[in-house]
């Protein structure tokens, strides 16, 4: 029995960045924009977080496309990001039948 999914559309990428210098800040992201940065599942950007929050050196950074993208856009984006950041993994984000196949942080 197969799961009935009619369409899958690539809309972005989660990149897990290792940073020893706090919450990563990004510029020059086209054709993506950064939706959030989270640490251990809690959103730390945009907006504030309480000073009590334990931060580890591993951040989940969500980049959503601002226009139609292909795998090549993600490949070149990762290459550009690698010039500044150390990243441990990347996870492509798809909409399945227009429903997000990815979670949001707290």
């Amino acid at each position, binding site marked *: 029995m197969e*799961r009935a*999914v009619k369409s899958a559309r690539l809309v972005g990428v989660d990149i897990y960045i290792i940073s020893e210098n706090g919450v990563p800040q990004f510029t020059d992201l086209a054709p993506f924009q950064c939706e959030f940065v989270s640490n251990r599942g*809690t959103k730390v950007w945009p907006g504030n977080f309480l000073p*009590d929050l334990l931060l*580890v050196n591993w951040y989940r950074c969500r980049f959503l496309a601002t226009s139609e993208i292909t795998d090549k856009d993600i490949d070149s984006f990762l290459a550009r990001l690698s010039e500044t950041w150390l990243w441990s993994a990347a996870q492509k984000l798809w909409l*399945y039948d227009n429903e997000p196949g*990815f*979670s949001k942080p707290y």
Partner: protein
Amino acid sequence: MSKHVVTLIPGEGTGPEICEAVKRVIDASGVNIKWEYEEIGLDCLDKYGTLLPEKTINSIAKNRVALKGPTTTPVGTGHKSANVTLRKVFDLYSNVRPAVSIPAVRRPWNDINILNFRENTEDTYSAIEHMVSSEVAQCLKVITWPGSFRIADFAFKWARAQGRKKVVCVHKANIMKITDGLFLEAFREAAKAYPEIETGDIIVDNCAMQLVRNPAQFDCLVLPNLYGDIITDLCAGMVGGLGFAPGANIGDSCAIFEAVHGSAPKYAGLNKVNPSAVLSSGIMMLRWLGENTAAVCIERAMQAVLAEGRRVTYDVGGTAGTDEYAGAIIEKMNEQGNGEQWKEQ
């Protein structure tokens, strides 16, 4: 001027009537608390567009202590749990769940006195889930060294303060060698600062079996989030059910005390349900605030009312409503005096 200011979050379903009964009992103990009422849950969606309004977060951030009633969490889809959001936002990393046999509530197990310390912010609760293909879903289990070390250290600190003898780490490091292995490694490192406390470790499935075979062998348990969720409910069931299970979510500078049961919406407004779990959470809160005399006073009165069995709720064989049970506890406290004679040792 009030000695303490506490954020009171009645919650949903039966939460408001339970919390009102608990507030009556705590106020009757003579402890000086100013309660600041705040909201949470599905009702807030219509009013504020969120399950957890900013006003509630600000109140807790200001007062640093809250008592909370139950809320409802949608299953599978919809909004994220308001409970987990609170734990995440305030980094309440230690979920303290005592499981202690209540003499008046007879169960097959009557010799349980376990302090559970569940890591409350990591593991599969990190909200990192993806459909990685059209037919494969993935949830990341995030275990960190600092997160694991601090829950272990917290447990050892409590164990030392309460004169406990043994702390055991629960894990599945035989299978998840890297994630649970890191949790166990951090536990062993934390243990080095507490040489007087005996330590051990146990695989989670064996822990579940040992709990029902011989619960008296356990003193304190330290668990990653998901195993902790399950094992602490098992422990609660063994001492009388979630109706008697208190809980505290504690961070470095903030604490939220709450029962772990659901909001039982079908009983809402019926003045029927047992408020003991929220009351016991309130007793934990009083101890956290340093109000030990009031804590002992309420605890003894509650035990006495349960032992008499006349004015107790339906779940323990009585016919009393929430209000009447609370009133019986207050009467018992008045009979007992102001609690000075029971100052905690």
